[in-house]
């Protein structure tokens, strides 16, 4: 089942369908195989991870060369069947998620050395991966609900893998919050089906645009966005995130913070832009922006006060998700054109940068924790000498979280502030600046502790399999996304006028 083997099929439709289908089906099959053959789990899991990442790259290349892909499964009427779709935005996120997923898989090989831990990890992780790809590529509201359930269940089970009391409590709470959230989302879907009689996002979009705005639309929007905001830990619904993400095993924390939360945010963005654009006014976007501002300030402040490295990283996720929500009022106030395109690309650039940087940060934090036996920030002295490559990875990822040049989030924040000034919403500039200062404070607090007055290290890399993935992800977030972000505009099919870089 390699991606290449499907080239044999003659029909062009099938060739277009193959990468999308394989990106979802390969990890699903991998999960079944690693469950049935637990002793081969690490080997099978690694092979499947490479294959899935290959399918994701293939998907992105297909979108790059042919433009958006839309396919209806089963050969039925589009309103009756389920559609998959991949446009520039989906392809960019799929690419990020799968590269991060590949790095997490390599890292997990070294992290889960005990066979029974590895046997529990691989099938659940591959199910989580299948759900992520399925979610990014879905074109049907009910199918999205199924993907959300799969994602939430696999994520909570993975988070509790350490088996400690704290981890199980935190993740049981995460599971219950997730269930309430997806049921809230489902209620919104049911309302839309009652009103329009279809679940396909494309058909619904034109139906909503053709109809007059009704209170039912507004109610469906509120329910769906509220459910997803709970899942994406938007302030003040973030309460479940820090304990769940901080108590999970390091590769799982990386996946939860970098990918799972991002998937829920991506859905909000899609619903906002694809479905509800015609019925929205500025006040709804303003509310999301305000909550985002709260998340930036509160999350950064809590990260600064955190005593443990992983808790700091978890609160930093709350803050970084907040930045993404700051874009909504700006998008609403900007008329279609190059400056709006730039805002959209900047939003995506920040989401991608955070994905790479936070995964790298959590993986490096996990190495510090296994090496030192704890992750108390105050007692990190000498880490730079013991684990130079890992400390370098933390510093790189940290600079991307702050938004220092040349990281991708620097360009993202620059365009965010530019947009805020252009639309006259200057207060977001204040929020962005304060958040950046706070994040600089919490990152430098870690770095200042990590360097101690000990002899200079002899070897830069001490454990390649564990340290290199974290370093690569951090490097991508700073160098690749920052210096070579131009292609993102092309992938999104936008005018590459601003570019920023």
């Amino acid at each position, binding site marked *: *089942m390699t991606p290449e*083997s499907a080239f*044999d*099929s*003659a*029909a062009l439709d099938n060739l277009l*369908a*193959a990468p999308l*289908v394989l990106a979802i*089906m390969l990890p*699903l*099959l991998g*999960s*079944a*195989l690693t*469950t*049935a053959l*637990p002793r081969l789990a690490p080997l099978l899991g690694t092979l499947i991870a490479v294959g899935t990442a290959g399918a994701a790259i293939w998907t992105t290349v297909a979108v790059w060369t042919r433009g958006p892909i839309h396919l209806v*499964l*089963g*050969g*039925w*009427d589009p*309103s*009756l*069947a*389920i559609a998959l779709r991949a446009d520039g935005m989906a392809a960019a996120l799929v690419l990020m998620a799968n590269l991060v997923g590949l790095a997490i898989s390599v890292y997990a090989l070294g992290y889960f050395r005990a*066979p029974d831990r590895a046997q*529990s990890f691989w099938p*659940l992780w591959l*199910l989580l991966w*299948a*759900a992520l790809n*399925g979610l990014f590529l879905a074109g049907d509201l*009910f*199918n999205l609900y*199924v*993907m959300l*359930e*799969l994602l939430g*269940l*696999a994520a909570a*089970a993975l988070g*509790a*893998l350490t*088996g400690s009391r704290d981890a*199980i409590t935190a993740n049981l709470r995460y599971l219950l919050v997730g269930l309430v959230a997806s049921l*809230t989302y489902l209620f919104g879907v049911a*309302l839309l089906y*009652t*009103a*329009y*009689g*279809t679940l396909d996002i494309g058909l619904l979009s034109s139906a909503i645009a053709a109809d007059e705005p*009704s209170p*039912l639309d507004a*109610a469906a929007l*509120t*329910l769906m966005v509220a459910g997803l905001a709970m899942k994406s830990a938007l302030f003040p619904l973030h*309460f479940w995130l820090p304990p769940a993400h901080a108590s999970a095993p390091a590769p799982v924390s990386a996946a939860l913070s970098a990918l799972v939360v991002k998937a829920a945010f991506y859905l909000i963005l899609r619903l906002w832009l694809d479905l509800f654009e015609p019925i929205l006014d500025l006040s709804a976007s303003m509310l999301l922006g305000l909550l985002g501002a709260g998340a930036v300030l509160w999350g950064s402040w809590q990260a600064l006060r955190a005593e443990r490295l992983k808790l700091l990283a978890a609160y930093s996720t709350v803050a970084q998700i907040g930045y993404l929500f700051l874009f909504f009022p700006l998008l609403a106030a900007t008329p279609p054109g190059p400056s709006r395109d730039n805002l959209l690309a900047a939003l995506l650039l920040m989401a991608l940068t955070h994905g790479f940087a936070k995964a790298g940060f959590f993986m490096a934090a996990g190495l510090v924790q296994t090496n030192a036996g704890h992750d108390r920030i105050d007692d990190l002295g000498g880490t730079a000498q013991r684990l130079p490559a890992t400390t370098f990875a933390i510093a790189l990822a940290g600079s991307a979280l702050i938004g220092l040049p040349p990281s991708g989030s620097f360009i993202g924040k620059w365009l965010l502030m530019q947009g805020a000034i252009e639309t006259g919403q200057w207060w977001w500039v204040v929020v962005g600046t304060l958040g950046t200062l706070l994040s600089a404070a919490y990152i430098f607090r870690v770095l200042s502790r990590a360097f101690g007055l000990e002899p200079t290290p002899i070897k830069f890399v001490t454990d390649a399999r564990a340290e290199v993935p974290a370093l690569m992800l951090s490097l991508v977030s700073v160098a690749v996304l920052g210096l070579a972000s131009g292609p993102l505009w092309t992938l999104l099919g936008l005018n590459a006028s601003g570019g920023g870089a």
Partner: protein
Amino acid sequence: MTKDPGRSGADARNDAAAAARAAERDRDLSLLLAVLLTLIGIALLGIYWLALNEAEGPRLADLALGLVPRTGVDNPVTAVLLNYRAYDTLMELAVLLAALLGIWSLGPAPAGFQRSGRALAAMVSWVVPLLILAAGYMLWVGGYAPGGAFQAGALLGAAGVIVRLAGDPSAGLPGEHAQRALSVLGVLVFALVGLALLWLGDGFLTYPPSLAKWLILLIESAATLAIGVALAAAYVGGRPATAPASTLASGKAGARTEPTGEGN
């Protein structure tokens, strides 16, 4: 999660204080949740009232019913689940698998109940074969009347629950290897059928009308077994005991203390 026997009293007091703080935090949290949920509930009532009064919009039922003859089955519900929206059903089987894997990841199963008395054992030996027979009937009848893989699997799962309640710690399930293989059977067969159709040029999960009935029956049979095993194994509530054959093969499993040979 065993407690360290050599802990000092100070540690215990610290733990108690921490527990009190945690309880206080939990109380705050549940209050917040209660307020939120009440508000959401009031809003939902309003919306429900609104949806009831809204003019009835278009529905897919006519379209779906009209195409049923081309799906390979006669029951419209089965047509939706296994043909129009087969991809959703495949993912629902994956959700069930995720739940089972989550339960298995939390540790070995607790001990079962004591052996049943004669009267109960006699009744169980009556009811369980009937349940299995009824599951087979449900699977077949799903083609043209209400029934299908989920209903049949639920009956199989119920048979497992009864067997465990009557004292068999493994709920009548086979050893670990067979259990693992059976629990993924639904996802595996479903996904492989879908990919094979993509490979042959029909498209992912696009059944050719002449084969649709048999492909659906194949998928549903595999799904029935997988659902039945997953539900019974979920009721057992933990990782299955390692089968005797693999105990010999791997030295590590010998450290476990589960009794072997409980099946006789």
